[in-house]
């Protein structure tokens, strides 16, 4: 009995330590944003202040980086979500022989380091643009390169979201609609897209946030310009100013609100889907029972 109690305490202690490791650094960083000390730390606590938040708005590079990040985020969503949807639908439709090869190719960007995706995107568009005769400014535009580079792997992330959802798709719905005379375009818009709506929503959020916080690819594709994340990295590397902590508090606050809403919404939608599936199954069972009863009588 006592050995069980000891084990329970060990487990509890381990979980407590784990979450201390997970949240401790973030809490300490947040706290340092409110310390008067000109160095971001909490150990000599010199008094409460919010002056570091004021300094943020005056940093032009951060502000312009933020605007760039938002535009790039929109671009990535607009490119990668349709790409991911197409990729996922294609996976369902390609023949069994090609599927493993196809899957390997489209999933590989998840496993390739972001640094390499950034480099290869820059090199490819620089040379390809000139081979095909495109305007130099077009193919070497930092925004174009960043959106394309990030979408390479963000599409793969989103595709995995779509695949997970598509695996539960009831193909008979599609066939029924076609039998009743619907065109395939109608089936796509009226059946497939509504079914995929939660996955589309998830991938929009996922794509935007992943794009927003990406560093490894962006630092190559943005060339001389910067996003919020690359500017932040520059500050974090060289600067020792509590205003970074203040920015961290702002970003964390926003992302946490976003994340909590997203998680709650996702969970609720999953619960609704499961409930409806269960209801349908029960209905079917009742129908079968009724039919059986009829046959019996």
């Amino acid at each position, binding site marked *: 009995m006592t050995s069980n109690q000891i084990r329970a305490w060990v487990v509890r202690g381990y979980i407590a330590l784990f979450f201390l490791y997970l949240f401790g650094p973030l809490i*300490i960083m947040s706290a340092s944003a409110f310390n008067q000390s000109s160095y971001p730390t909490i150990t000599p606590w010199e008094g409460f202040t919010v002056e570091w938040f004021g300094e943020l708005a005056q940093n032009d590079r951060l502000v312009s980086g933020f605007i760039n990040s938002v535009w790039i985020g929109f671009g990535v969503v*607009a490119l990668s979500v349709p790409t991911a949807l197409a990729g996922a639908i294609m996976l369902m439709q390609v023949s069994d022989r090609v599927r493993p090869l196809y899957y390997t190719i489209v999933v590989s960007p998840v496993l390739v380091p972001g640094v390499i995706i950034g480099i290869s995107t820059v090199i*490819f568009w620089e040379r390809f643009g000139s081979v095909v005769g495109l305007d130099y400014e*077009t193919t070497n535009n930092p925004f174009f390169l960043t959106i394309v580079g990030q979408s390479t792997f963000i599409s793969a992330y989103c595709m995995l979201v779509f695949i997970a959802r598509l695996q539960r798709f009831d193909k008979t719905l599609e066939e029924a609609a076609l039998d009743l005379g619907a065109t395939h375009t109608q089936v796509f818009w009226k059946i497939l897209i509504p079914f995929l709506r939660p996955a589309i929503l998830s991938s929009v959020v996922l794509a935007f946030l992943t794009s927003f916080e990406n560093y490894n690819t962006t630092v190559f594709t943005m060339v001389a310009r910067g996003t919020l994340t690359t500017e932040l990295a520059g500050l974090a590397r060289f600067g020792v100013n509590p205003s970074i902590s203040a920015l961290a508090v702002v970003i964390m606050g926003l992302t946490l609100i976003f994340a909590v809403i997203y998680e709650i919404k996702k969970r609720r939608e999953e619960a609704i889907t499961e409930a409806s599936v269960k209801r349908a199954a029960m209905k079917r069972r009742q129908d079968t029972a009724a039919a059986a009863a009829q046959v019996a009588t």
Partner: protein
Amino acid sequence: MNELTGPEITMMAQAQITPSLPTPSAPAPETPTAPSAPSNGSFSITPSLPGSAPTPQINPSITPQLPGGAPSISPSLPGSTGTTVQPSNPAPEPTPADGGIGFAEVFIAIVAALLVALFMQRKAGKLSANLSAMQFVQRNGLAISAYLLTFTIGWIVFMIILPQLYMFDFSFRHNLLPMEIGGPKDVYTLKNYKYLMFGREGGGEMLNWLHLAVFFKTIIASVIVTIINFLLCYPLAFFMAQMVKGRGQRLLFLCLLLPFWVNEILRAFAFKLIFAELGLVNAFLIGLGILDQPYDFLGANVALYTGLTYAYILLMIFPLYNAIESLDHNQIEAARDMGASWLKIHLRIVMPHAKPGIASGCTMVFMLTAGALAAPNILGGPSSLWFTQIIYQWYNTGGNWPQGSAYAFVLLLSCIIFVRIMMRVFKVGLGDIAKR
């Protein structure tokens, strides 16, 4: 270590492409900052290219109806037709007599054409096999199938395959001045790879210890970080998957996910604060009397390894959780009833069952750690480098892009080897690994 510096060399590296411009636009720009505005508009070159035969379905008319993807995907359309055409038309346009470059372009074009052709043929074969799908394409599914093909092929060819091939090709080239490109000096070379192995020719050293040491340090440190991560996460994953249910489990999930949404840079910065000279750890240790004066945790890379372990912890937890969760708890009970020890239960029952999850988690963590750039930039000591930082230096201050490409390719190769080893050791497919 970067013998090339100065802005003109960076410019030169960027301007290397100029000679491979198609011959019609004769006045090739000297520098990237002053391009001489080619006659062709940016996106409107499709009609001017000869014979866009092999891709009839990819009709540009489809793109306007997809507002989001249109601006970025449309430039790839003319490209796809242009590249596909090259092998069948024996050098009408962009293969001038400039030696290496022309050959490379043709080679890549052939590969791309083969891939596109293969892909579409397979796709067509599948459709004809499936009667209803065939009917839909013929009747009214043209728009949708055009959308599917455009986006998938655009993604695979122009975002996944060709960039990697171009980088591979680029890594075998000399870092030339703009006027030398296309000239007699523009030939393939192993120089960039030799440099990583042996250093500068006549440098006096046997091997390029500086860069090789960084490379092996990166790989070994990534392996160690991965192992620590596994040991840290396995108990929690097991606990969450088998011991708690319902509300507690949902709460644990939410708590795990929240830090994952916080920017990677900020997570690294948090560790810089903790381990800095005036940080919490030093203050704590001095307060306890263990240290007399602050210890340089950043310089000793303690902060770096702790931060790297932290950064990708969730990519270990979730695959492990998913794998362990599918194990029937009765198996564990049965083993315990038979008298199996706690250790034996894990080694013989839980871990073999969780193999795909272990492979997935370890691979993801290793790849991300070895390819990390932000955490080493922020947390790394001044004297130590991560391999990605050297790559970045070649691109940025070093201004030697072919050299950087060679280094990047070596990194990519080691990652591929690692994935292959994991697949072989754990006997799992790539699909199991990439699942998150």
